[in-house]
């Protein structure tokens, strides 16, 4: 086991950034913490929960996948060595789940090329980073079990460094990383994990909602109606979700003879996402689309590799943080649980006012 003093970390990152892009927390001139290209002057450890998950490093908001030239086209697969520093365990779990998803059935060469060149340095959480954190519920934090290259545990003026891969081992070869007694480190990590886990409350409704969706799917229609009524179809929940990877494909004319085929983020909250060529739409209302989204997180996941997670939600809580009308996974799970099974009975859910 290794350890690194916090005041040596910047030097390490400068070195890591010599031959790869390092994405790390940064404090802007206005004092906000963002997660962006490593910047020596703005580097900070005061990141809490970044506003966006790190998925854009593997799955950019938009990317050229084909370049069209006169007489033909060629595939454009882009990738470059990248290190994601300080990502949270929930987000790391999201990356692992997405990697599995993007390689099942069919190979996605665009995603794979980037994911092969990504190194992950996870920062274990000492507790909730915001009131909406629920990784202990979804078994996706507050520390990563596996699949990382390095994982850091806060230990006062230093970090304990857990090595998760050969590539991780190579990263810590510099003298800035001090050797540490393995048994002592393991004991400290166990204590960290115990304390951290106990600080993040379980939201029992999430598992209850999964159970309810499994057994009495029909009963919750009014829940979806209530949320559908107020959704403004911004799609923001998909864009901030660590495990949402749906995309659409469009063409862009560059010149008379050339063009690009681009894929960009899409959202299942848009009507056009499921609209068929005939005009028929199997998910024709917001209510049905919100239902679909949450079923994909809580119900249709049995055949997927969750990397130890409960389902395909990793409990980051961002949908609850950012939805302007409070249609987050937490609120949805609570509504599913508080709605009565049979129609006509009193509903405690307050998603709509008539």
């Amino acid at each position, binding site marked *: 086991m290794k350890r690194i003093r916090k005041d040596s970390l910047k030097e390490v990152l400068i070195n890591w950034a010599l031959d790869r892009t390092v994405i790390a927390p940064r404090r802007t*001139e*206005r004092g906000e913490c963002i997660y962006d290209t490593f910047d020596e002057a703005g580097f900070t450890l005061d990141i809490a929960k970044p506003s966006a998950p790190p998925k854009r490093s593997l799955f950019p908001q938009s990317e050229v996948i084909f370049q069209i030239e006169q007489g033909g086209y060629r595939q454009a697969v882009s990738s470059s060595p990248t290190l994601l520093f300080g990502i949270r365990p929930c987000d790391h779990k999201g990356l692992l789940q997405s990697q599995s998803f993007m390689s099942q059935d069919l190979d996605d060469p665009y995603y794979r090329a980037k994911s092969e060149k990504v190194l992950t340095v996870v920062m274990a959480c000492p507790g909730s980073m915001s009131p909406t954190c629920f990784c202990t519920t979804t078994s996706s934090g507050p520390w990563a079990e596996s699949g990382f290259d390095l994982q850091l545990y806060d230990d006062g003026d230093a970090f304990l460094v857990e090595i998760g891969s050969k590539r991780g081992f190579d990263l810590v070869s510099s003298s800035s990383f001090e050797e540490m007694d393995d048994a002592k480190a393991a004991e400290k990590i166990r204590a960290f994990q115990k304390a951290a886990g106990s600080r993040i409350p379980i939201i029992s409704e999430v598992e209850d909602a999964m159970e309810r969706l499994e057994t009495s799917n029909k009963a919750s229609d009014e829940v979806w109606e209530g949320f559908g*009524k*107020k959704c*403004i*179809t*911004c799609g923001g929940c998909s864009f901030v979700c660590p495990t949402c990877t749906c995309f*659409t494909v*469009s063409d862009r004319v560059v010149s008379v003879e050339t063009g690009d085929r681009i894929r*960009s983020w*899409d959202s299942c909250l*848009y*009507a*056009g996402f499921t*609209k068929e060529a005939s*005009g028929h739409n199997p998910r024709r209302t917001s209510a049905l689309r919100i239902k679909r989204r949450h079923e994909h997180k809580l119900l249709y996941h049995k055949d997927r590799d969750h990397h130890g997670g409960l389902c395909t939600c990793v409990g980051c809580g961002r949908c609850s943080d950012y939805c*302007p*009308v*409070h249609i987050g996974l937490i609120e949805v799970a609570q509504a599913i649980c508080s709605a009565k099974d049979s129609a006509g009975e009193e509903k405690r859910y*307050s*998603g*709509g*006012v008539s």
Partner: protein
Amino acid sequence: MAGLAATFGSGAMTNSINEMDEAELFFVIGSNTTEQHPLIGTRVINAVERGARLIVVDPRDIPLARYAHMHLRQNIGTDVAVLNGLMNIIIEEGLYDREYVETRTEGFDELKRIVSRYTPRVVEQISGIRADDLMLAAREYAGTGKAMLLYAMGITQHTTGTDNVKTCANLAMLTGHVGRPSTGVNPLRGQNNVQGACDMGGLPVVYTGYQKVGDEPVIQKFSDAWGVDDLDKAPGLTITTMMEAADRGELKALYVMGENPYLSDPDSKHIERALSNLDLLVVQDIFLSETAALADVVLPAACFAEKAGTYTNTERRVQLSCKAVDPPGSARADWEIIQDVCARAGYPMSYADPSEIMAEINRVTPSYAGITYPRLEMGYGLSWPCPNEEHPGTAYLHKDRFSKGLGTFLPCEFKPMAEPPDTEYDFILTTGRMYFQYHTGTMSRRVGILEREAPEPLVEINPEDARKLGIRDRDLVEITSRRGAVKIKAEVTARVPRKVVFSTFHFHEVPINLLTNPAHDPVSGIPEYKGCAVKIRRCA
């Protein structure tokens, strides 16, 4: 704008968006809030969920109406009658704020005299809103301490737009709902910087900060600031009067920036004639719009991400916008283009960057004096008035006194729409926007996902009317007004009341403004987009 300036002395949203979180009641008239100001719409929805009351006054069954405790569906163009009716009830039942009326306003007797004629029964006949409902709404609005009135283009885009605004202001003043937190008269501006454009004097009658064009001290101030001595003392023309003047051959040259009047102005045939009658048409835009295609000179401009500057949003908040990428090709920031045009016209300007322009705005505009670049760079914007660099900005206007001193009741009589339906043109066409497209589509129709959501123009028609006319959903119909005709697919929906059809002006394939009436408000010049007479038939 003109209506609020006359009543209060200031033409802007009186209160701020954050105050919505504390409001106890929203009175929303002529605003499809969730579709056109979705984030403000979410504030209203969240407020209703925590217990605030919501009264929606709108002819269409807009999405926000699903949250309304009362949805009053007035006949199109009868807003003055409805609002006068509310005031009639409020005065009749003694629900108005006597102390406020006595100490803060003038003109109450005249208001009382005029609204006395608008009894609930009379208003029911004019507006179609049941007298009982009107009474309930009046009592709720007057009886709630923190009541915010929101309106948008459903109020302004009428030949009586200025009257509509004045009447909204009258109602708010009568009940003491101005000059306190979470109250006020709140016009939701239709574009991200239309407030800023007005603030900067993008109106024919004022310089920056609403300093009047004809006022001697103002002329002196700007003459000194700009080193010129022949500033025109006469107000300029509004866009509607410009088009009329061009049509008559009196206006020779037009310089259009970021506007697409060929599609957005009423009576497109008239606009085409007017534009082709010009000696010179210059269009400065980010894309080759339908209007730009007619221009003698096209000046390519940078889009929002390609230039720096500020925007002033609907709550008077001036916010900094930074440049993210370089403009493509020969496109440049608007200010750079204007600077070069001015230089070639014999008036050299030498601003190095937008911050120098802002410094000049600070010098000549009292309400913007404290909104300096260094302060904007450090925070999240400042709301005017902000008279000096120590001032924190103003969340709500007219605290303790109105900008002009006493607030003036300017009562208005109801006037019917300019072109009411008759036996031949028996429907009213009302126009607006939809969530997924923006204005004439110059920008939004280039976005694949938006186009996927809303690929084609539709006209909404009530199921009863559709049945009588043999129109089924998605049938092609022809709509004809006295000015033109279009063919468009029908959407059969109860969203529109009977004898009303609704469509948008986003689609060049069906330029709906071929039909609309150029008759406009005498003060503001805003045309009556919200109502003209049409007939409709199913295409064989």
